[in-house]
């Protein structure tokens, strides 16, 4: 009865309270925002059930703040309003009091949380905000199931934890800290779930169901994600039940621990009437000190510092502050331990730039954000909460000083938090044995760039708290505002002048420092600092003193009174700065540079296509030779490119006009033709030019095209700062040089944008069987193999590298010049590098090997050298002779991708140079080198026909296969299998997020197929038919096409070679792995061992198998299976592999259940089907089981397969 009354009273109290509904509104908004902010896939429906479930969880995690407010209030309110003595002395039982309060808070929160599905539903209706997204059919269950299965149980759990925290500490701050802790704990768990081998364990250690949901959705294809409702999968059910039980246990603990008693000393209590203290009064003669205050600037300054110091000391006195500081050190350590895992399992060293940028700047960023939100509110409310405000507010303290002091305190706290985090960062480095600390870089990044962002947000947070004047609503609104500053671009607000705290971003590079980023960043931050000043003025005139209930009108009137001359002057200065700095930035972003939305940018390429596509088939000469003089000015930055092309008519018809295309960012000083020609079209804006030749160029004839162009960026743009020409580490290619003829490469590829801009969709890429399209060489149409002679000038202290052999190098006018010339016609990329390089040299046979690297990056040079040697060794023996006379690796700043291959030159970004390879890990610098060197054969000399489906198979698949083989030869089979496991996993992950899946031979721009599936397909074929046969096929294919002349090969040519070497009985492999999308699902049901009379052990395996074909959208149909699959029996072993094989042989496995008997000489520990996970099988458990003695009829326990 009493329980009911407590419940009803509490429920009514909460539902009448305005803040309840504001929380609901906030949650609705959060749900709406995340729905649109996270829409990025064009294949998964906006309202796909799995996506909705994920969004529900994310919104629910942010909703923990609401849960903290509701449950915290329910548990602490009595003490806060000092009703506890009345309540605790009533004949109420603990269970009734706590139970009623808890259930009421839960009921209210459940009602409030309905805002999440509602917000998602409204967001679905507002799908026009996301024109690219597709809305699937509406299903109510898709919205309600996540609410019921995820959100509600989470509320019970989180509510129980927070309610308990609140009831036991009787304070609010620990509740928020606990909520933040839970949030962070979950992110950590999600971060590390991938490392836990047992999927079942992951499902159970995940309190909110986030990892469970991820696992459930992991390898689902788009079609499955769109179609499948969440339902109640077994694992999710167990997870929910387990954590509900935990919640019950926590509540039981609370019931045991909670006492109806006075909060005791140290609680925050107001004093009203009070009893006399125990100390006696000793008569003291009366004397009133007559010290009068003095007022002026110095006093105000002193007061500001006093407020700051006092607020800081007050916060720091709480024992929670120490916990927070500890967390600020511990969390980066936890989150940053695996920083920079770049490829496979190899991570880079925890170099300072990664620790500062990735760990402190990205992974840890949530924490300072949450803390600044929390403490901004605490600082604004502290005096009122403790009740000292009545006295303090009547002190002769200017409003601005009260605010400024608290801002300073918040700034000091942020400095402390960041310093603690920095210690965490240093610990990551020290504990992993990396001692090249860069304190200067830490200071600049953490206390320069990052602190400035937090400070600006801190001003915003305090201003909002002052204006909102309701602590908890303030927290929610501040959180929303901060969130909005992060996701505004998703709502089309892209100009950094419009989003508080906006800036163009930055990337630090060891080679190039902050490079071009620091200037624009500083300008934008200065601009936002001016806004912050204005906000501070607003906050200071709105500062609340006393406890006047704040009507808007009254506060406006009061603010009006407070607009004194100095305040007005400050506001004037702020506005002047906003206008001045904003104007300067606008001049840079919108006048010196073009500010264009992505669609406007697309419109330019659409116009290029619309106007000039009619020239696509106009016969044009091709570049046969090029003489170039490139002047790089790294400091400015600028590049001048002069030179000439020898254009040859390789067609069979006379050519009467030459079309020259220059990219719009390049300025042409002159373009001239050797023979008389009239410019019939000069389109400066789009960069297209047509010169009519007076005398046509006959087939086989050639003429010179001279040009003098320059690339000189001015000012800075709103985003996307150019990083091609930088102070140290310039790297660019031919894109600033003139192109001959219309280049389809520049056409807009995105179909949505094309439709929007009135262009017909691009025709599907021709298939590999389409003979008509085999004449184009990827990627440019105007050059085939070209003789290039290039002089590159650069700063005196830099080395310039380009394709060809170095002829000589000299100094001239304080600049350094390098003359390079190709020794044979070479693919024309005109790639140029320039930096203050150090050089490491070696040779393999008569081929000089060199690595141009950043001076400090020496850790992996030996691995790369070994990679080059091992690759040349294997490839020349297996595929054909090395066609070039040298091989080199060039380091480039980490602005771009990972690695790229050019003729006899491999470009690696810095990350490869600070890779750290530990015992047992894939040697990434070695593997990467092997991959890129393999491109000399695959994609370099033998290159597939341009724009034809299947081209990726001919380059990336073969490069990866080659690199795996070199790895196997150097590091052994185990290592190759490891690589295989990673490739398989990435393929499965890739197909879950991508739109259409096609067979390998039809692969389009789908790296997860070309790189990943290609690698495992080739390696699997190798496993079945042997290395010799596969390499013979590759050798033949290389021989046939090494001349580099059209017609160019397609995937079918390669497949034909592979078919020729594959025995009839195994040709199904080519169908399954190369020509279709095939999946397997095998599982060992039972593994039983019996001793045989002969002294051996007979293992009986019950296995079940099936084979599926998937269509392009992921719909699967089962097909009969009769494939060779490995069966293995293993002795007990250590490590995470299945153990030492006692038996390992391929068996014919049919669809369905079957029994296999194997006899082994020694006692087996485990047995199973496909133990090394060579098949494309989405479930990674149940392949191998621990064997059971025959008597036992229990189901065998699954162990994890090797990965």
């Amino acid at each position, binding site marked *: 009865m009493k329980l009911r009354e407590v419940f009803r009273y509490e429920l009514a109290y909460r539902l009448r309270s305005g803040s309840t509904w504001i929380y609901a509104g906030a949650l609705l908004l959060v749900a709406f925002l995340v729905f649109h902010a996270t829409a990025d896939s064009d294949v998964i429906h906006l309202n796909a059930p799995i996506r909705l479930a994920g969004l529900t969880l994310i919104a629910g995690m942010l909703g923990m703040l609401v849960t903290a407010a509701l449950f915290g209030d329910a548990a602490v309110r009595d003490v806060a309003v000092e009703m506890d003595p009345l309540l605790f002395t009533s004949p109420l039982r603990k269970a009734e009091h706590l139970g009623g309060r808890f259930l009421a808070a839960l009921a209210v929160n459940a009602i409030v949380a309905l805002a999440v599905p509602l917000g998602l539903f409204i967001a679905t209706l507002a799908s026009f905000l996301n024109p690219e997204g597709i809305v699937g059919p509406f299903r109510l269950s898709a919205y309600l199931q996540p609410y019921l299965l995820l959100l509600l149980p989470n509320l019970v759990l989180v509510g129980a934890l927070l309610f308990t925290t609140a009831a036991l500490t009787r304070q609010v701050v620990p509740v928020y800290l606990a909520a933040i802790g839970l949030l962070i704990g979950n992110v950590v768990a999600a971060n590390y779930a991938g490392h836990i081998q047992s999927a079942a364990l992951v499902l159970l250690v995940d309190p909110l169901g986030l990892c469970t949901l991820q696992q459930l959705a992991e390898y689902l294809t788009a079609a499955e994600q769109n179609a499948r409702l969440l339902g109640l999968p077994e694992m999710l059910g167990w997870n929910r039940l387990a954590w509900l039980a935990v919640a019950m246990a926590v509540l039981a603990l609370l019931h045991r621990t909670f006492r109806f008693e006075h909060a005791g*000393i*140290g*609680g*925050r*209590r*107001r*004093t*009203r*009437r*009070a*009893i*006399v*203290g*125990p*100390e006696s*009064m*000793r*008569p*003291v003669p*009366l*004397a*009133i*000190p*007559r*010290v009068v*205050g*003095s*007022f002026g600037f*110095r*006093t105000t300054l*002193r*007061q500001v510092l*006093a*407020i700051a110091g*006092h607020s800081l*000391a*007050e916060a720091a006195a709480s024992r929670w502050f120490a916990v927070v500081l500890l967390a600020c050190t511990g969390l980066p350590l936890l989150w940053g331990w695996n920083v920079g895992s770049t490829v496979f399992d190899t991570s880079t060293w925890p170099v300072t730039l990664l620790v500062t940028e990735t760990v402190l700047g990205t992974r840890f960023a949530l924490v300072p954000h949450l803390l600044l939100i929390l403490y901004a509110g605490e600082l604004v409310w*502290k005096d009122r909460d*403790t*009740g*000292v405000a*009545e*006295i*303090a*507010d*009547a*002190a*002769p*303290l*200017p409003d601005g000083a009260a605010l400024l002091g608290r801002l300073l305190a918040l700034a000091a706290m942020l400095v402390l938090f960041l310093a603690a985090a920095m210690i965490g960062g240093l610990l990551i480095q020290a504990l992993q044995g990396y001692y090249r600390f860069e304190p200067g870089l830490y200071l600049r990044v953490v206390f320069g760039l990052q602190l400035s962002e937090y400070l600006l947000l801190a001003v915003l947070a305090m201003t909002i708290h002052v204006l909102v004047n309701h602590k908890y609503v303030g927290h929610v609104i501040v959180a929303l505002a901060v969130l909005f500053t992060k996701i505004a671009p998703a709502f089309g607000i892209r100009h950094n002048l419009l989003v508080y705290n906006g800036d163009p971003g930055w990337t630090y590079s060891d080679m190039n420092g902050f490079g071009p980023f620091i200037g624009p960043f500083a300008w934008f931050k200065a601009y936002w600092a001016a806004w912050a000043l204005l906000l501070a003025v607003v906050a200071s005139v709105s500062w609340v*003193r*006393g*406890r*006047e*209930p704040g*009507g808007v009108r*009254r506060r406006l*009137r*009061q603010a009006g*009174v407070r607009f004194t001359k100095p305040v007005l002057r400050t506001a004037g200065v702020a506005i002047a700065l906003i206008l001045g700095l904003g104007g300067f930035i606008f001049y840079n972003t919108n006048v010196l540079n073009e500010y264009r939305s992505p669609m406007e940018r697309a419109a330019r390429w659409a116009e290029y296509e619309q106007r000039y596509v009619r020239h696509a088939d106009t016969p044009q000469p091709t570049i046969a030779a090029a003489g170039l003089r490139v002047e790089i000015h790294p400091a400015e930055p600028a590049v001048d490119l002069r030179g000439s092309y020898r254009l040859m008519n390789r067609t069979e018809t006379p050519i009467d006009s030459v079309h020259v295309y220059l990219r719009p960012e390049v300025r042409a000083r002159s373009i001239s033709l050797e023979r008389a020609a009239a410019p019939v079209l000069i389109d400066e804006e789009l960069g297209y030019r047509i010169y009519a030749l007076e005398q046509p160029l006959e087939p086989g004839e050639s003429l010179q095209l001279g040009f003098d162009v320059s690339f000189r960026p001015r000012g800075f743009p709103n985003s996307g700062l150019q990083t091609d020409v930088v102070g140290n580490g310039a790297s660019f290619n031919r894109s600033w040089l003139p192109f001959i003829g219309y280049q389809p490469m520049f056409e807009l590829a995105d179909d949505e944008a094309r439709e929007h801009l009135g262009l017909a969709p691009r025709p599907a890429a021709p298939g590999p069987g389409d003979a008509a399209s085999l004449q184009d060489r990827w990627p440019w149409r105007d050059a085939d193999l070209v003789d290039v002679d290039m002089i590159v000038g650069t700063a005196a202290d830099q080395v310039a590298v380009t394709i060809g052999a170095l002829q000589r190098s000299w100094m001239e006018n304080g600049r350094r010049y390098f003359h390079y010339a190709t020794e044979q016609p070479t693919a024309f990329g005109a790639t140029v590098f320039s930096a203050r390089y150090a050089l490491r040299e070696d040779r393999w046979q008569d081929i000089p090997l060199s690595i141009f690297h950043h001076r400090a990056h020496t850790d992996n040079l030996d691995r790369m050298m070994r990679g080059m040697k091992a690759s040349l060794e294997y490839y020349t023996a297996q595929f054909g002779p090395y066609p070039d006379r040298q091989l080199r690796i060039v380091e480039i700043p980490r602005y771009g991708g990972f690695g790229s291959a050019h003729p006899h030159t491999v470009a690696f970004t810095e990350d490869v140079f600070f890779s750290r390879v530990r015992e047992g890990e894939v040697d990434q610098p070695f593997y990467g080198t092997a991959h890129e060197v393999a491109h000399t054969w695959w994609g370099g000399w033998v290159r597939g026909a341009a724009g034809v489906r299947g081209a990726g198979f001919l380059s990336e698949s073969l490069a990866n296969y080659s690199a795996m083989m070199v790895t196997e030869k150097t590091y052994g089979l185990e290592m190759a299998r490891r690589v295989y496991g990673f490739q398989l996993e990435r393929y499965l992950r890739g197909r879950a997020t991508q739109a259409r899946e096609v067979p390998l031979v039809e692969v389009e721009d789908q790296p997860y197929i070309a790189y990943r599936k290609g690698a495992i397909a080739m390696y699997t074929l190798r496993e079945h038919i042997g290395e010799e046969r596969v390499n013979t096929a590759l050798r033949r294919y290389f021989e046939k096409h090494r001349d580099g002349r059209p017609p160019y090969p397609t995937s079918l040519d390669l497949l034909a070679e592979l078919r020729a070497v594959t025995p009839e009985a195994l040709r199904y492999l080519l169908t399954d792995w190369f020509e279709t999308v095939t999946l397997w699902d095998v599982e060992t049901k039972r593994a039983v061992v019996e001793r045989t009379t002969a002294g051996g052990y007979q293992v009986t395996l019950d296995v079940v198998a099936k084979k599926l074909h998937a269509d392009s959208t992921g719909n699967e149909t089962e097909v009969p299976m009769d494939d060779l699959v490995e069966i293995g029996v293993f002795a007990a072993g250590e490590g995470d592999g299945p153990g030492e094989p006692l038996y390992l042989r391929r068996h014919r496995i049919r669809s369905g259940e079957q029994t296999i008997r194997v006899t082994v000489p020694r006692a087996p520990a485990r047995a199973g089907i496909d133990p090394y996970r060579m098949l494309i099988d989405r479930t990674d458990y149940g392949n191998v089981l621990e064997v059971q003695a025959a008597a036992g009829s229990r189901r065998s326990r699954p162990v994890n397969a090797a990965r």
Partner: protein
Amino acid sequence: MQLAIRNVSKTYPNGVRALHDVSLSIPVGMFGLLGRNGAGKSTLMRIVATLQDADEGSIHLDDLDVSRRKDEVRRTLGYLPQSFGFHPKVSAQRLLEHFAVLKGITDAGARRDVVESLLRQTNLWEVRGQKLGTFSGGMRQRFGVAVALLGNPRLIIVDEPTAGLDPEERVRFLNLLGEIGEDSVVLLCTHIVEDVEELCSRMAIIDRGEILLEAEPARTIEQLRGRIWRRTVSREELASVQRELPVISTRLLAGRTLVRVHAETSPGAAFEPVEPDLKDVYFTVMAGHHGQRASVPEAAGAAS
């Protein structure tokens, strides 16, 4: 030095009329504001203490407009609110120093002296290092007094200051106030009639937001001389006495009820005349026999 409150009205957003056309002139010295709980005393105090704004009317400290020049008022203001709290984790000395800075005492030496002297005055010197969270109610109240006396304030507002003080402390505190009142305006707000009677040269009685009486305590007591009568009655008689006579107060005394009646002449043989005190003034005014409610022209006018 004079505090002039003119026609001040204040209505809260929820419709409660806290003050209605309140006018008072408060000279240097102790001024007592008497009224029962909820009469509007604290609202008036907070308005004078710059923490609220009146809807209408004005308040001037000499020629300082209190609602417009709050910063200047605050420089000479000592305020002890009715209810307040302190940061629990700070020592008394530390917090008092903090307030000294806020009150503009920036010179370290002077600040130390003032803080020490005030802590001694309020008998907190022995416990200066203790955290405020460990203070008893009386200690906290005394600490509040110390804060209010910082910076030699010329306008002191104390809202129910003696509540929670033991008799000895109360005497000391009132003495302290009396001494300050010699050259400051001290506004003492209380519902304890004795506080006012003992100390205040002037006083006002406020009820339901209106000033019922503004007078000098001694003079107004004098006016009641000969008009207060008392007798003891049994419980049965009480009802009829209350019905027939202007009873201003009743008190239980040894099982019978002592009744005090306001009357120009003896209300009956059983009544004996008594010497009036301020309580009688208070109850008479509240009962409507005297002051504004009685619609009798009030002799007590502007301060002399």
